[in-house]
Structure formats: structure tokens, C-alpha cells
């Protein structure tokens, strides 16, 4: 067995483990070949955009002393809203036998979401079998994952807390238009596209980014993909140019 190969395998395994541990939840080890995204479904669709986003209601039995592992997701491909929590994350009142998790697209509540809101407002809730709201144990979090409409790749998840929308520390959720945030409570959430990354280049063919007010605001918040493509192209081109420079140097010397 090659000692060098074993060393390289060891380094790779360490980096893979670090990469997986650093992710807020498990991410795909690899995923190639096909990336399929259904069109974004709006609760209040602008002209030409699909409607009827799905809701989800999962009932999970409590079998131990703590709450079960939570994973609920809406039915789109990929889901437009997901919630994930580790076992024992919820504070269960005595006598709780079932945890009911619901995710629903809802009309934008008051106060209105920020102007660059992209897509539906979703209400996440956890209740016991008799409808008693369940909360997360202090110091624990759940992970909320939301998908933005097509082409919105820069933004943050906002939560309605008290009488205002608050931006949450947001990470990439595995695809450019998926966003995830660790939350300490349930309620209403929405993705807000980054104002710095928005432009007014939307066309009629582009998916509207914001529809939470029920009106088509396609011109408001389109975040285009070219920046990420350009950066990647630049990185790869630099690698290639470096190799070609090596080739030229070697050719001169031989």
C-alpha cells in the first residue's frame, strides 16, 4: 500500500469531515448529473407564475423523554420550506405524546416584510397533540431552510419577532437559491434578497422575486447569476493560465 496514497486519503478524509461538521446540518456528500428545480410556487402569484404552494403537517410520536428528531418539508422539488431539529430540542410539557409540526405559506402579516422579500412568507409551528404551542429549549436551535425564487442567490432569512422583521445569520443551504438559518423560535419567516445584489434588469420572462404583497414586483429584486459564473470562470481561467505559463516556460527552456 502506498504510504503517499494513505497520507493523501487521510488528508482528504479530515477535510471532508471538517466540511461536513461545519455545515449547519448534513449536506450532500456529492451531487452531480442532474439539478432539478421546480418553478417557485407563489401563494399570491404574479401573472404567469405558478401558484398553490404546498403546506405540510407532520405528527411525530414522542417515544422517549425528549422530543423526537424533527424534519418537515414542503412538497416542492426542492422543498420551498424545511425545518430540522435534533432530538430533545423542544420543551415538552408533561403528558405530551405527539409533536405536530406544520409549515404553511401565509399572506404577509403586519408589519409588512421588507421590500426585497423574495417569495412566500412561511409560518413554522410546533404544537402538542392538544394544540399547545411548543418552544425550543433555551440554548438549542432548529434549522430553517427556505428556497427563494429562481435567480435569487444572495439574501438572508428574516423572522418576524415582536413588531419587526429581524435578519438572521444565514448560510447557503446546498444550492445557490437555498438559504438556511438556525433559529431559537418558530413563527413567520421570509427570504429577503440582498439590496446590494439586486438590479432592475428583470424581464417578463424572469421569475418575479417578490410576491408577498400579492402584486407582481418583478422589476424590484432580480439577483442575476452571472457574478457567480464570472468568479468561477475567473478562478478556473487563472488555474489554466498558470498551467499554460508553466508550459511556455518549459518550452523556452527545452
Amino acid at each position: 500500500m502506498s504510504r503517499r496514497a494513505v497520507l493523501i486519503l487521510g488528508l482528504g478524509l479530515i477535510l471532508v469531515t471538517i466540511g461536513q461538521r461545519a455545515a449547519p446540518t448534513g449536506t450532500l456528500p456529492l451531487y452531480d448529473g442532474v439539478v432539478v428545480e421546480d418553478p417557485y410556487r407563489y401563494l399570491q402569484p404574479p401573472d404567469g407564475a405558478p401558484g398553490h404552494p404546498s403546506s405540510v403537517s407532520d405528527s411525530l410520536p414522542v417515544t422517549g423523554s425528549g422530543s423526537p428528531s424533527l424534519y418537515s418539508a414542503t412538497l416542492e422539488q426542492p422543498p420551498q420550506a424545511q425545518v430540522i431539529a435534533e432530538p430533545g430540542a423542544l420543551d415538552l410539557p408533561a403528558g405530551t405524546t405527539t409533536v405536530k409540526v406544520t409549515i404553511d405559506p401565509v399572506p404577509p402579516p403586519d408589519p409588512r416584510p421588507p421590500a426585497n422579500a423574495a417569495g412566500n412568507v412561511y409560518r413554522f409551528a410546533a404544537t402538542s397533540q392538544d394544540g399547545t404551542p411548543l418552544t425550543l429549549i433555551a440554548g438549542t436551535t432548529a434549522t430553517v431552510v427556505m428556497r427563494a425564487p429562481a435567480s435569487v442567490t444572495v439574501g438572508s432569512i428574516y423572522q418576524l419577532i415582536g413588531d419587526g422583521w429581524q435578519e438572521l445569520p444565514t448560510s447557503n443551504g446546498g444550492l445557490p437559491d437555498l438559504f438556511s438559518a438556525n433559529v431559537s423560535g418558530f413563527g413567520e419567516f421570509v427570504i429577503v434578497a440582498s439590496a446590494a445584489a439586486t438590479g432592475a434588469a428583470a424581464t417578463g420572462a424572469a421569475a418575479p422575486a417578490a410576491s408577498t404583497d400579492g402584486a407582481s414586483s418583478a422589476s424590484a429584486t432580480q439577483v442575476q447569476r452571472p457574478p457567480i459564473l464570472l468568479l468561477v470562470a475567473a478562478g478556473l481561467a487563472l488555474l489554466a493560465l498558470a498551467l499554460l505559463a508553466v508550459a511556455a516556460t518549459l518550452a523556452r527552456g527545452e
Partner: protein
Amino acid sequence: MIRSVVATPDRGQLAARAGALLLGAASAALARAAVNGQGAVSGFAAGAAFGAALLGLAVAARWQVRVPPPRALAIGLAGGAVLIGVPLIAHPGLPLMVGMRPQPMAAWIVVTVVVATAEEVVFRGALLDAVSQAAGLPVAIGVTSLAFALIHVPLYGWGVVPLDLGVGIWLAGLRLLSGSVAAPAVAHVLADLATWWL
């Protein structure tokens, strides 16, 4: 499975070949991201075209198909099991975040196998060999792993870079350990296919 044709290009030619391969792979990846729209047909077509483009690059780089040795297949199976196992161990009890089940399943399997194999033929095969002979193995592993991570950014975002950098190094180790591209190809295919069930 697939081996480079024995030839005696000088280091300059090898570096030039590596640069051309990298530019070709980059172009294919960017084109794939640009045309990948919404819906299964678009995703399947973009993936299949990307795989075909990479295989075309491998052919241009004078690679030929050979029957893989059983040892390489066994190493690939073990390597794939590790790639699948790490996230399950890293996050016990938690389902993975993105469930992807594009229909029809058979088409997804075919395209996934083609793309994963083509990526290995190019990155752990032709490109690794060319850069290794031109600039040494450490540089080759660094270049191929970084390029491998970067080509996934357009579809999956920047968050994929640290993980795919590690995966690229792991797959390069499988190639070195087995002496065949078949090992990383099998591991890569297994890891990709496992996402259907994870």
C-alpha cells in the same frame, strides 16, 4: 477502466495539455450552469451534455477504456462507503437537508453515472496525470481538487468548496492507492446515487 495512452510528451506539452483540459472542463461547467433551467428535462439535458463534453475532452486527451482491475473496484466501493458514511456520522439522527428525487429515476441514474464517471476520467485521470508529470504530484492534487470544487460552485454555491475540495483530495487518494481511475469513479458514483435515499 480508463488509462492514458503511453506517450512521451515533454513537460511543456503536458502542462499545455493540462491547461487545455482545464479550460475545456471550465467551459463545460459554465455552459451547463447557464443552460440548466427549471424542470427535469432541462436538468437531464444539461447534465448529459456536460458528461458528454467531459468524455469528449478525455478522448481528445488520448484516453482509452480498459477493463478495471477488481482491486480498484473494491477500493472504489470502500471509498464510496466512506463518503456516504461521513455525513451520517457527522450529523447522527438528522436527515440530510436537500432531498432530491428527480423523475424518472432511471434517467437520473444514467445521467448521474455518466457525469460522475466523466468527471473522474478528466480530473483524476487525464488532468491529474498531465499536471503530475509536468509539475509534480502535490501540485496535481491541489490543482485538480481546486478545479473540481470550483466547477460545482455555479450549481451549488460557494458553500460547496470546502467539502468538495476535501472530496477531491480523497478521490485522488483512491486513484493513487488503486492505480486506476475506476476506484474514484466507483466511489463518486456511489456517493451521488446514495443521495436518492439519504
